[in-house]
């Protein structure tokens, strides 16, 4: 079925509730709905298995129009159907929950509620997920009229309140993990209810590393934002910049030269190698297999050095520019990359053998956290976590962008869906990446590296999807025709994959939990990008170096 037919099919499904159909860009269909028709429309799309819910974007249209809008993006291959629901800004802007139809929507809905103040009718839980506990009620940071003065922390509503921990009933014990915990290196808080050693319930709380990037983006110009988004995540920094520049270039109707596109894919491929090797090390460490951890990280240095040689930095490569790339690949770099790839490929084959044959490691991975194809689809999993269950969710294959038309990638899937399959999928993907990178190096198109990019981007909105190492990265970019974006909404792959941990931990031994968390390759800094806790004017961050130092000295005197 081609894209046109697919979109027509979506239009037919939505026809009973659709008020107005628009085509804001290629391969996209927008349907305006009334709030009460949202649930039947989503149920119909879901029942017809039309794509999956990729993200929900909330927009504040400003005091002038007096409205807010929620955009439900469904993706099916390259085709995107967006359900638009408009509600008045003042009073109760109530949306019906769709979390019972599509479970991962619960995170998106929570985000809508916490950031923009949509009320979600029928939501199971109203606990805060992203925003800090001492944030005042009824203050929504992504509203247009939000003022940092409003964000004074509320006394008494504090994150330090003792959660329900310890013995909480007969045969029920709550074990808190995080935000700071030796088994979990990043800030996330989980409460696992256990009966003996078996987990009977799981809760989580995110948002300990919120930096307010989406809000900050609105006050920076298009170019400055490129570097801001690159810093969302240290591991997949290139894919963030890639997705953002693809979106902005689409809005500005700028065609990026073929050579620049190929180099972008090259950097993305190297980044995938470094990300997956890092993940392999972390997982091995969680499983107590530190030898694998040490050696995989030693080999990861090879790819880090290649990236440094190519772009000038090891972590935030800044290889992208709006309208092209900075770094060219000369014969010297091409040779170094090829040599590095040869070495890495033999090592990756070796690790593939290790993770599929080592008895100790298999005891921790085989048959653990098994997710079936149906479950993967239901939970809305993305990236390698989904592909390990046989569900081919890979934007590079489903909806090729940039240079992936010219240098296609073959999708890797496994069928078992357990932790072992997730290891195998990731390592096999690296072999595919190595192959693709060699093809690119051998057939690098000639031509310029950049094209001219206007400083002001024409008004419009666009969706840009890129396959990050962890799964589909979703950017929604809206421009008012000025030097700054009007709204940038980012949905990172980790957010969708959390369900796999929460659902699969129940019934397992507590000792498997760290492996389950590591198995989806969570990226907390990607998750926690949304909100400003206390801005520059707030008390906590205006501490000078001197005061901080003094505070530290006083603190330790006691």
């Amino acid at each position, binding site marked *: 079925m081609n894209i046109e037919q697919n979109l027509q099919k979506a239009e037919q499904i939505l026809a009973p509730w659709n008020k107005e159909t628009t085509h804001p860009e290629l391969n996209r269909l927008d349907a305006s709905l009334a709030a009460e028709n949202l649930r039947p429309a989503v149920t119909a799309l879901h029942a017809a298995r039309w794509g999956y819910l990729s993200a929900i974007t909330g927009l504040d249209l400003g005091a002038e129009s007096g409205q807010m809008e929620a955009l439900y993006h469904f993706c099916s291959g390259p085709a995107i159907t967006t359900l638009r629901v408009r509600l008045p800004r003042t009073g109760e802007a109530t949306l019906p929950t769709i979390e019972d139809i599509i479970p991962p929507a619960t995170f998106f809905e929570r985000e809508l509620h916490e950031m923009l103040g949509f009320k979600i009718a029928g939501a199971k839980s109203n606990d805060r997920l992203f925003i800090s506990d001492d944030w005042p009620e009824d203050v929504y940071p992504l509203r247009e009229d939000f003022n940092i003065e409003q964000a004074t922390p509320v006394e008494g509503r504090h994150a330090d309140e003792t959660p329900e921990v310890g013995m909480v009933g007969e045969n029920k014990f709550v074990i808190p993990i995080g935000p700071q915990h030796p088994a979990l290196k990043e800030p996330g808080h989980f409460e696992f209810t256990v009966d003996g050693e078996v987990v009977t319930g799981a809760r989580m709380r995110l948002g300990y590393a919120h930096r307010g990037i989406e809000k900050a983006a609105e006050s920076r110009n298009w170019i400055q934002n490129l570097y801001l988004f690159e810093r969302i995540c240290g591991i997949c920094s290139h894919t963030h910049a890639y997705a953002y520049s693809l979106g902005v270039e689409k809005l500005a109707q700028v065609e990026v030269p073929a050579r620049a596109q190929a180099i972008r894919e090259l950097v993305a491929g190297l980044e995938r190698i470094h990300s997956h090797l890092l993940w392999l090390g972390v997982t091995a460490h969680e499983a107590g297999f530190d030898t694998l951890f040490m050696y995989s990280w030693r080999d990861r240095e090879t790819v880090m050095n290649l990236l440094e040689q190519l772009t*000038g930095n090891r972590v935030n490569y*800044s290889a992208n520019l709006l309208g092209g790339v900075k770094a060219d690949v000369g014969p010297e770099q091409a040779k170094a990359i090829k040599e590095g790839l040869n070495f890495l490929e033999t090592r990756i084959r070796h690790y593939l053998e290790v993770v599929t044959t080592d008895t100790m490691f298999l005891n921790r991975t085989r048959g653990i956290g098994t997710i079936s194809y149906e479950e993967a689809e239901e939970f809305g999993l993305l990236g390698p976590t989904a592909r390990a269950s046989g569900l081919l969710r890979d934007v590079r294959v489903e909806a090729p962008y940039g240079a992936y038309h010219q240098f296609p990638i073959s999708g890797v899937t496994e069928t078992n869906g357990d932790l072992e399959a997730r290891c195998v999928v990731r390592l096999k993907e690296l072999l595919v990446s190595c192959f693709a990178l060699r093809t690119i190096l051998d057939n690098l198109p000639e031509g310029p590296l950049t094209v001219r990019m206007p400083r002001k981007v024409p008004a419009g909105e666009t969706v840009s999807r890129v396959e990050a190492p962890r799964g589909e990265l979703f950017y929604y970019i809206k421009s008012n025709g000025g030097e700054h974006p009007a709204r940038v909404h980012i949905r990172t792959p980790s957010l969708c994959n959390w369900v796999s941990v929460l659902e699969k931990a129940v019934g397992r031994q507590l000792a498997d939990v760290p492996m389950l968390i590591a198995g989806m390759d969570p990226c907390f800094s990607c998750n926690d990008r949304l909100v400003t806790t206390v801005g520059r004017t707030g008390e906590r961050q205006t501490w000078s170096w001197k005061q901080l130092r003094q505070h530290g000295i006083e603190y330790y005197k006691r």
Partner: protein
Amino acid sequence: MRIGTMFKDILKSFFTKSSTQLYPVERVAPPERYRGILSYNPSVCTGCTLCVKDCPSDAIELVILDRAAKQYVMKYRMDRCIYCGQCVVNCKPKGIGMSNQEWEHAALDQNFMVYYGKEQDIAKYLEDSAKSPIAETES
């Protein structure tokens, strides 16, 4: 299924050099494209301030004393700089560069402000700003 799948790697490592670089005793030359400290050449600068406009972290500021006589002073805050290299790309006359040699920024004091420009211009600028109490409040 077998055990000790990585024994070979371990045995091999007994007879090879450690992978860890013993910095600062052992120094590896940074790659050619490494982005280190900023350099600025006032004699080619046109004063267009595109570098300042697009700096993502407000790390640079250009003071134009006299455009005709090419008297520019660039205030560069090393601590704010994120070494993205956007200013280098923006500079059409190639007046801004990034050194791949100077990259060890650790210091005991917190004086990260660097002034670039011709010596007499910097002296003049500092003298002027010392007179007016508003300027130079930030450190």
